[in-house]
């Protein structure tokens, strides 16, 4: 990546990372990148401690039941697959929505197509928000799981997950929240909100590196591991040890990445997630207001910035999103993400399928100048 690039693709992964994240990974790699183990040599213990520290940090940040309930994963997709494939049984009914990413759509659809589960998909409203009452109506006696995103990765619209979680808890089903766009950006309290499964990447708002993610498994959940193997501890048992988190963590984890994630969590906590969110949203609001009235631009989703994360999506008459993306990249060195953003259903609902949209998404290091550059570029291109 050219350091001159104006990076506005933070919904895909945040960049740059805080300096402390780079340093933590460098230090870890040089000094203690051994295979973790609970009873091994001192380097193995140091490695294990990174995992423990990160679990404690996550549990504090999200007010979970216990650090042991956090299983590290490769990314959010991995966490969502672990939850969906580990929890559902033949004959179960699942409620999901048209806002979901393919990391939710695809595992659910393939289970549905193989005849193992039934699915009800709830549509969001025109602005891109779910009505919890629509979800309440979809429950059947067989409903096992509700899967819902905390914020749309296309529209940035924040969903009423607290209300949806409460309704789900009353029905006795489980709820899996995809916090890909919100973990580290919006407050999530597992203590106050009855969320059973929380999946998120480490490399977005938590500021860790790619290759990190986690799944929180609440006490009500019965789950099967979808990956089995060595755990660095109990080697006697013939099958996967049942104690958390090792039950779900076969194989050597990405400890170097998690050392970076741990530094990222510390950084986010020090900055204050509220402050980061406000910073990003004030830029997003400015961007949205500046371009909404440009000729041929159509903004997607509602623009009430008190109920959004800093994602600004739009289409341009006469220019396909991929073309605009390439123009911004090749002529202005601005990185945005064009296309369907792996969320085809919401593009269908917004009548932007299959071309998709242009998505600019902000991170904690973006500045007013970055936004002005994008506004200026759009004006220049549309003025042609």
């Amino acid at each position: 990546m050219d350091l001159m690039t104006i990076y506005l693709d933070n919904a895909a992964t945040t960049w740059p990372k805080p300096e402390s994240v780079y340093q933590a990974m460098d230090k870890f790699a040089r000094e203690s990148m051994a295979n973790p183990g609970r009873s091994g040599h001192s380097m193995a213990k140091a490695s294990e401690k990174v995992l423990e520290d990160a679990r404690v940090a996550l549990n504090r940040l999200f007010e979970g039941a216990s650090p042991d309930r956090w299983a590290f994963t490769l990314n959010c997709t991995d966490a969502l697959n672990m939850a969906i494939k580990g929890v559902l049984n033949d004959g179960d009914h699942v409620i999901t929505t048209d806002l979901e990413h393919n990391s939710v759509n695809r595992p659910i659809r393939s289970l549905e197509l193989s005849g193992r589960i039934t699915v009800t998909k709830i549509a969001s409203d025109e602005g891109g928000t779910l009505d919890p009452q629509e979800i309440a109506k979809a429950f059947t006696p067989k409903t096992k799981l509700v899967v819902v995103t905390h914020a749309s990765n296309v529209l940035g619209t924040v969903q009423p997950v607290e209300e949806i979680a409460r309704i789900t808890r009353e029905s006795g089903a489980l709820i899996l929240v995809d916090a890909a766009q919100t973990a580290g950006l919006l407050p999530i309290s597992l203590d106050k909100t009855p969320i059973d499964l929380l999946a998120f990447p480490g490399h977005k708002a938590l500021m860790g590196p790619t290759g990190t993610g986690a799944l929180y498994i609440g006490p009500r959940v019965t789950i099967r591991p979808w990956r089995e193997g060595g755990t660095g501890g109990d080697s006697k048992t013939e099958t996967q040890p049942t104690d958390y988190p090792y039950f779900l963590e076969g194989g050597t984890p990405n400890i170097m990445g998690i050392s970076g994630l741990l530094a990222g969590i510390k950084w986010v906590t020090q900055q204050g997630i509220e402050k980061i969110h406000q910073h990003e949203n004030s830029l997003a609001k400015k961007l949205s207001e500046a371009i909404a009235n440009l000729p041929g631009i159509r903004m997607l989703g509602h623009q009430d910035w008190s109920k959004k994360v800093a994602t600004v999506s739009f289409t341009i008459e006469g220019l396909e999103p991929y073309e605009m993306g390439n123009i911004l990249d090749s002529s202005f060195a601005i990185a945005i993400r064009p296309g369907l953003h792996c969320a085809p259903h919401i593009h269908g609902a917004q009548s932007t399928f299959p071309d998709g949209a242009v998505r600019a998404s902000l991170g904690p290091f973006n500045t007013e100048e970055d936004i002005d550059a994008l506004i200026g570029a759009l004006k220049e291109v549309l003025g042609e």
Partner: protein
Amino acid sequence: MSKTNWELTEADKDRYSRQMRFGAIATPGQTRLKNARVLLCGCGALGTVLANTLVRAGVGFIRLVDRDFVETSNLQRQVLFDEEDAAQGVPKSVAGAKKLNQINSLVTVEPVVAHIDRGNILELAKDVDLILDGTDNFEIRYLINDAAIKLGIPWVHGGCIGSHGQFMTILPGDTPCLRCVFEAAPGPGEAGTCDTAGVLGMTINIIASYQATEAIKILTGKLEAVNRDLVYLDCWENTFRKIKIAPLKGKVDCPCCTHNRFEWLDGEQGAQTTSLCGRNAVQIAHAKPIKLDFELLTKNLAHLGNVSSTRFLLRFSAEDCDFTVFPDGRAIIKGTDEPDRAMALYARFIGH
């Protein structure tokens, strides 16, 4: 590289008798040809002439690689194909191999339907004595050069456009390599392509015949006879120029043959393709951005009659595909979801 040690049979001696009477070849040379293995990159204009000549000359094994299918517009210069091949749309390497088997069943022709890229070239080249350039783009030529230098295999470059063409023989460790002479490829849109500037069948036959002659010299071990110049000729303007490149060997600080940095094999140079999800389109971008001259490209593509451009993009349509090209050389090609086809179309209409 040849592992075989076949002797000539009576059938060989009869078939190749005129060639064997040529003193520099004779029985030892013909025997070497029988045991020789060649990788021929591309089975188009140069490729079909090269294959035709070498198969008739008794080169024992030829691996013929091309990803394209025969079309009517190939028949003007691609000598192994006929109207039926074009009507059936047979892969060029398959149609070529079939015809070559009819021409000479004593040798082996192995057709491979594939786009040559950094993922397969070392495998394609690992067991041959010589690589021949029958391609139509610089990207693959630099890749061939990397592979040839890395593996220590001689290769013969050839290229044609309009009525002019050039060829050059590369003996690793002995002569300058392609990068010693042409440090960088002409940028897309700069050099013209056979699809924009056209090409004469006669030019092809002349250049390929020179390449084949170089091939026979190398395969028979007559390295002293190898042409060590870059030869450039124009059969319409009646010009023939020999450019002395031998002194460049060791004098230029060549990344490839001096420093063993194989930038095309390692993906530091060249184009990357991405299939755009669900769009029946492929995006092509260069590992190192280049500067595209829209004015020149518009002129080169004028015959298509549908070129339009702004400062930020240039659009045209050809071969049932819509092209959107950007100033740094990247392009979106709509109408195909095959990266290989998109690359071939890019090479044909934009260049490289």
